[in-house]
C-alpha cells in the first residue's frame, strides 16, 4: 500500500492524483472522505488531511461544506499538463543516466526507444 | 470530592438482592416445613430460633465474596476505590436492613398462625425477652429486633470483608501465619481473660452491660462493624487492583 521511501501524506496525494488522471475520480465527482482514507489505510486522519490538502492547495480538489471533497473542474487537464512538464525530469534524465551506467550509446538508446514505441501496448 | 456513588449503589444493590432472595426463599421453606411438621406429627414440638444467626452467616459470606469483585469492576468503570468501597458498604447495609425487616415480617406472620407447640423467636427474644419467648412483640420490640438483626448482620459482613481484604494483601507466607494465628488467638484470649481475675471481672461486667439493653449490644456491634470497615479500607487504600488470575 505505502512504502517507506516517502512520507505517507505524499504517497496518498500521489494516489489521489493518479485516481484523477485515470478518471477513477471524475471531475465534479466526490472523493473519499478523510475518515474513509484514514480508516482504509489505517493512518492517522491528520496525515490523510495533510495529503488531501496538498491537492486542495493546488486547486485540484475543493471542499463543499458539510458534504465533502470534490474533484475540481479541469483538474485532469491540469494534472496532465503538470505531468508532461515533469516528464523530462522524472523519466528522461533517469533514463539517460541509467543508459550511461550500462554503457549504452546514444544510437542504441534511440533504437531502443523506437522499439519501445512500436512494441509496448 | 464528589463521589459517583449512584452507579455503584445501583449495581451492587442488585447483586446483593440477587444473592439474598435464595437465602430468604430457603428460610420461608423452613417455616412452611415447620408448619407441615407440626401438622403431621401432632405430638412433637417445633421451634425455630435461628433466623438472625443464619442471616449473619449469609452476610459474612457476602462480606467475603462481594467486595473484591466490586473493587475490580469499579476500577474498570472509572470509579475510585474509595467510592467503590463506600458504595458497596452502603449496599450491604441496605441489604442487612432489608433482610432484617423481611425476617421480622415473616416471623410475625408465622407467630400469628403458630399453635402452642410451635415457637418462633430470634436474637432479640433470646437475649431480652427470655421469659416471654412465646409472646408477640410490641411495636417497639419489633423495631428493636429489626435494628439488632441489622447490626448483627452488618458486623458479620464487615468481619468477612476484613478477612477477604486481609488475605488479599498478605503474601502467601503471611496468609498461613494469619490462618494459624487467628484461631489460636480466639482460643487463648478468652482463656487468658478467664484466668486473670480483674480481666474476668471486667469481661463479666461488660457482658452484663450488653445484656442490660438491646441498645448497648447494638452499639457494640456497630462499633465492631465500623472498626473492621475502617481496617478494611486501610487495607485496600493502596492495594494493586488486578484480575484474580493475572497471567
Amino acid at each position, binding site marked *: 500500500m505505502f512504502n517507506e521511501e516517502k512520507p*505517507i501524506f505524499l504517497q496518498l496525494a500521489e494516489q489521489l492524483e493518479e485516481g484523477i488522471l485515470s478518471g477513477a475520480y471524475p471531475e465534479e465527482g466526490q472523493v473519499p472522505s478523510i*475518515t474513509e482514507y484514514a480508516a482504509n489505510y489505517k493512518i492517522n486522519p491528520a496525515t490523510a488531511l495533510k495529503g488531501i490538502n496538498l491537492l486542495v492547495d493546488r486547486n485540484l480538489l475543493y471542499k463543499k461544506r458539510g458534504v465533502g471533497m470534490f474533484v475540481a473542474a479541469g483538474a485532469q487537464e491540469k494534472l496532465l499538463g503538470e505531468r508532461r512538464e515533469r516528464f523530462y525530469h522524472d523519466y528522461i534524465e533517469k533514463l539517460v543516466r541509467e543508459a550511461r551506467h550500462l554503457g549504452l550509446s546514444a544510437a542504441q538508446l534511440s533504437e531502443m526507444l523506437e522499439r519501445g514505441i512500436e512494441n509496448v501496448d | 470530592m464528589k463521589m459517583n456513588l449512584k452507579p455503584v449503589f445501583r449495581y451492587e444493590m442488585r447483586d446483593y438482592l440477587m444473592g439474598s432472595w435464595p437465602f430468604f426463599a430457603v428460610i420461608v421453606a423452613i417455616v412452611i416445613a415447620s408448619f407441615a411438621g407440626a401438622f403431621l406429627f401432632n405430638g412433637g414440638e417445633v421451634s425455630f430460633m435461628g433466623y438472625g444467626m443464619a442471616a449473619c452467616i449469609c452476610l459474612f459470606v457476602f462480606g467475603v465474596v462481594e467486595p473484591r469483585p466490586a473493587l475490580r*469492576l469499579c476500577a474498570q468503570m*472509572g470509579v475510585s476505590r474509595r467510592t467503590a468501597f463506600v458504595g458497596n458498604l452502603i449496599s450491604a447495609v441496605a441489604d442487612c436492613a432489608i433482610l432484617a425487616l423481611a425476617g421480622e415480617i415473616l416471623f410475625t406472620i408465622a407467630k400469628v398462625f403458630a399453635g402452642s407447640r410451635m415457637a418462633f423467636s430470634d436474637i432479640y427474644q433470646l437475649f431480652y425477652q427470655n421469659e416471654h419467648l412465646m409472646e408477640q412483640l410490641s411495636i417497639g420490640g419489633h423495631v428493636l429486633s429489626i435494628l439488632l438483626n441489622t447490626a448483627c448482620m452488618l458486623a458479620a459482613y464487615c468481619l468477612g470483608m476484613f478477612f477477604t481484604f486481609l488475605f488479599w494483601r498478605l503474601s502467601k507466607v503471611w496468609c498461613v501465619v494469619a490462618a494459624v494465628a487467628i484461631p489460636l488467638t480466639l482460643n487463648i484470649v478468652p482463656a487468658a481473660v478467664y484466668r486473670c481475675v480483674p480481666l474476668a471481672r471486667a469481661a463479666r461486667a461488660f457482658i452484663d452491660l450488653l445484656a442490660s439493653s438491646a441498645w448497648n449490644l447494638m452499639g457494640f456491634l456497630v462499633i465492631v462493624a465500623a472498626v473492621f470497615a475502617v481496617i478494611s479500607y486501610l487495607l485496600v487504600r493502596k492495594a494493586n487492583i488486578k484480575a484474580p488470575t493475572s497471567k
Partner: protein
Amino acid sequence: MSIEIRNVTKQFGDTLALDHVSLTLEENKIYGLLGNNGAGKSTLLSIITDRQKATEGCVLVDGENVSGNDAALGKLFLVGEQNLFPDDMKVKRAFDTAQMFYPNFDRAYAEATAEKFGLNLKKKITALSTGYASIFRLILGLSVNTPYLFFDEPVLGLDAQHRDLFYRLLVEKYAENPCTIVISTHLIAEVANLIEHTIIIRTGRILKNLPTEELMADAFTVSGPAATVDAFTSGRHILTSSTLGGLKTACVQGVPEGELPVGLELSKINLQDYFISMMEEEDQK
C-alpha cells in the same frame, strides 16, 4: 485539557518499575507507547487509571489529581490485558453495567460492533476465548466515548481479519469523535502510521518522547558496498549495521548530508526497525 504525569516512580520491592517518569498527553492526539515486555508500559497505564498507586509522583487529569477522584477517573477508560469483570458476568450485562457507569456509552454502537466481530452477547466473559475476551474489551473501549482512551496490547490474540477491523474502527471513531488515545504495544509496524506521537519506554524510563514524524526524520538507512557505506557513515552515529556478503546496511542517526556516493541506496527508516536498533544499541550500553 491534558493528562500530566509528574515524576511518577513505582517500586516493587527491589525493582524499580518506573523511574521518575514525566509525560504530557495532549488533547485529541494518538500516542504510541512503545517498549519491550517488562519496560513498564502496563504499570504506567495502571497508575494513570489509579489501579495502582505510584510510590512517588502524581497524575493530573485536566489539572486534577487522579488519585481517588471520580470526576477525573470517569474521563478515562483503560482497555487492559486483564479481565476485571466478575466471573459470572455475561457480555450483555457488562454492556448494561458500562451504560450505568459511563453516561456517554453508546449501546447501539457496542451491539453493532459486537455483531461485526461475531461476539456472542449471551456468553459469559470468562468463557470467551483469549481473542474474543480481547474483542469484548476493545468494543467497550470503542463505545464508552471518554475523552481519554488507553489500549494496553489491544490486538493480543486477535486474528489478522479482526485486527484489521479493530484498527479501522478505531480510526473511524477517532476521525469522527477525536479524543486522546494511547496505544501501548510491541507490534509497532501495525500502528506506525497511526500514531502521531511516539513515546518509547525502556526499563522504567522514557527514552524518546516526540512527534512520530520528528522521530522518523532523525534517522535513515543507507545500504551499498561495505567500503562505500563505511566511508559515507564514518564519524556518524551508527545505531546498527548488518552485512550480507559485501553488502552493508546501516541505520544512522541524524539526516544524510552531502552528495550521496554512486552505488549507495538511501531510504527512510521504519518505526519498527528504528525501535529495534535503538533497543539493540541500549542493550550494548
